[in-house]
């Protein structure tokens, strides 16, 4: 029993313990407050995104693609070779322009951009024929001493199906090239200076990251909207996003692509020409044997010549004159004195 008025001696231990608890908790609380304020200060955005000047892009824009072209040699701009065997005609066409050594230097990393738009077998002619790819890849490695050859395209149909069914995957891999399938992350927004359509638009840039040469290889096809799909239209495959909106102004987009992309060389395969139902075809009856292979440093000239195989005039392809005005090349391919040959 304790006396009612007796003052108990203070429980020093308990008080000390309580004080310690308070101090520790106080320190932790202070740290938490400091952290909350710090994070708030760090992330503080007084106006929100809308109040800022609207950025051109969220991702950091790429300004154009590198210039892959080689110095021009008058008289060796375009070659036209007749023949049925694609491997031979393609090699001959390149030989006439000075050989692959003119275009590919030892150690180069080469990107080949065929048309792999559709999941159809090569016999239907809607995609670049694997034989041309094999021939060019081999030339790049064997005579050009390229370090690496990449074959890639951003297909219209499912890319894996397109590369497999067209036979391009197999041919390219067998010849030692690396086949690159498009991934969402391979596209970067790009703006063409002087252009009106390619503005902050996703373009298939990643495969070009380390490349220093670019060869476009296109089949020769009828196209209801743009009259013909050849080497210039082939670059459409480098556009990403919902690129089909550009069909509203097909001629300018083709011309702008030709302004944007400065290839080392383009090859237009007119061994067969898709005369009707392009650019998908779907039947061998859409095709006609035209036995012509074109290699060119000037894609406008190549396409201008190519239009003749479709029984068209260059004037039927407005994008040719638009591109010519922009300085991409010459519509009057005869003025470039095409080198001609025939291989049997």
């Amino acid at each position, binding site marked *: 029993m304790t006396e009612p008025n007796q003052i108990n001696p203070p429980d020093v231990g308990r008080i000390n313990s309580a004080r310690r608890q308070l101090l520790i908790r106080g320190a932790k609380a202070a740290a938490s407050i400091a952290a909350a304020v710090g994070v708030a200060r760090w992330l503080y955005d007084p106006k929100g995104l809308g109040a800022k000047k609207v950025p051109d892009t969220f991702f950091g824009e790429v300004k154009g693609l590198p210039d892959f072209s080689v110095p021009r040699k008058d008289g060796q701009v375009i070659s036209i070779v007749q023949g049925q065997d694609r491997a031979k005609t393609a090699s001959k066409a390149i030989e006439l322009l000075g050989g692959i050594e003119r275009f590919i230097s030892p150690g180069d990393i080469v990107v080949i951009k065929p048309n792999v738009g559709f999941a159809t077998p090569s016999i239907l002619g809607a995609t670049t024929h694997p034989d041309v790819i094999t021939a060019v890849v081999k030339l790049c490695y064997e005579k050009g001493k390229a370090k690496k050859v990449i074959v890639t395209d951003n297909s219209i149909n499912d890319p894996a199906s397109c590369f497999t069914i067209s036979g391009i995957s197999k041919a390219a891999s067998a010849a030692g090239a690396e086949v690159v399938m498009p991934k969402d992350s391979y596209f970067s927004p790009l703006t063409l200076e002087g252009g009106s359509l390619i503005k902050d638009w996703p373009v298939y840039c990643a495969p070009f990251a380390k490349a220093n040469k670019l060869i476009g290889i296109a089949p020769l096809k009828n196209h209801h909207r743009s009259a013909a799909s050849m080497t210039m239209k082939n670059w459409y495959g480098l556009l990403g996003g919902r690129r089909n909106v550009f069909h509203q102004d097909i001629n300018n987009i083709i011309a702008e692509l030709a302004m944007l992309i400065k290839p080392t060389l383009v090859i237009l395969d007119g061994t067969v020409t898709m005369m009707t139902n392009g650019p998908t*075809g779907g039947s061998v009856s859409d095709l006609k044997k035209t036995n012509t292979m074109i290699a060119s440093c000037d894609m406008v000239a190549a396409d201008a010549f190519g239009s003749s195989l479709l029984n068209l005039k260059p004037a039927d392809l407005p994008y040719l004159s638009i591109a010519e005005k922009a300085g991409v090349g010459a519509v009057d391919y005869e003025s470039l004195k095409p080198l001609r040959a025939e291989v049997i």
Partner: protein
Amino acid sequence: MKITTVRRISQLFFFALFLWFCIVATVGDKFWQIRNWPINWFLQLDPLVALGTILSTGKFYGPLHCALGVVILTIIFGRFFCGWICPFGAIHQFVGYLGNRGKKVAEKIRLNIYRKAQCVKYLVLIFFLGMAAFPSLASSLQTGLLDPIPLVTRSFQLVLLPILDRGTYLTSVNARYYEFGWLILAVFATAVLLNLIIPRFYCRFICPLGAFLAIISRFSIWRIGKTKPQCINCKTCEKSCEGGCEPSGNIKIAECVLCFNCRDDCKHDLIVYQTVSSLAGETQVDVSRRGVVLSFVSGVLAAPAIRLSGKVASNWYSGVVRPPGALAEPEFVKRCLKCGQCMRVCPTNVIQPAGIEGGLEGLWTPILNNRIGSSGCQLNCVACGQVCPTSAIRPITLDEKGGLGEFASAGPIKLGIAFVDQGRCLPWSMDKPCIVCQEDCPVSPKAIFTKDTFTTVRDGVVSVKKLTGDSIEIDQSIPAGKFGTGDYYALFEDGSRCKIASNTDTSIGISEGKLPASAGKVEIQVRLQRPCVDIEKCTGCGICEHECPVTGKRAIRITAEGETRSKDRRLLL
């Protein structure tokens, strides 16, 4: 080696095998992609798949013959499939193990007691079988909703692997989408998380396959049981009992999944796998007759009740576009397991698990959504029919799909027909050239053709000031550069038309055609190619819909009218 160790190895092996078959269900030419891997093996082993389709179709579909092996082995040995093979069971067992680590033995024993509610799974089974059993009323195969093999297959194929693929791209080049994936995941996650409440919750209370195997294991020759009627009643045998079958006393033999944990845990070696019933007593399937009758009648009535919506009859929804080779809808819903194999294998990702647009019974069945994936249904692909385990989608050839060779007279298989929405189509309603749909139509000759027309643009009638050489000077201001795209023409009063090469705000340059001698007014016209669909040629592949630049609601869309699989939906004469 302890038998439980062997069982664990077996479970691990079959789970790994299951996972491997999921991964290889990808079109491609790599070794880990679809070669001749038997990716449906687990579905084919599943006796409930076989039983369900037998009831709904009256036939035992050949590739499901492995299920007969499981039935025979179950009749002899009991529910070995549940404890040793089932990949879903392995997941439950593992999660249950994780959830119960550290719990006291008494608590574990309490979790594993037999519960009367374990009879629910028999009622689930009987309900589903009732739905499938009477073709004359309306036979609908819905076992796949809860049958563990289709459930776990679709969960991995349509949800777990695609989630894993985001960022890692292990099994696909680009992210894959599955519209009702969230619901599939919700069911899967619920089933898995219930193990934290009671181990193997799904197996004990819900699994209709387990229920079926329990019923047919009634006469199994070997069974778990006690060699003595009495023991010290320590109940250690129930500490890890997977089936919740009470091996310590009167064993509920139908619930036993042959995990053999009791045999291992009994310190007195009183529990063995033997040919006689447990000396401590044995109870067979414990379910009330009233429950059986009630759930069977409910199932029998549920099928026609669902059909009241008319979704499998005249009220069919036009957006239910089935993959190529799919059977007519009433036959289709008798076979489709909702396993998701077709959706996984589809190289373009266009095949999607449906919601309930095709009726309640159409949940998670395959439909084509051309807005998802890399392309519509590609002409040179028949992958979905090749992998369908029950032939709800027939294994057609490329010839049959394309109407080639011996199928030339039948024509190509139509999935539906493309309809142009003229109110949304750029050339039809906005006077903008486009025809992406026509360009990408893969049929030859193209099913989409164009009607070419010239239309005067808005404010396009301008008065001419002067005609000089190949240019027209005009009186009023027009947007500079706008008409030099190759698509615009100048129409004169005399009816002659010249192509516009370029324009400034007050002059128009002409590239083709000859200017008339004089003109008072000129109309600026745009040449439009307006897409039209040739109903006889269109196969409904959906590539046009996929490519249409009107990205929200496409200006050309496939609906199922005219699809080959249903005669009553035809549109052609």
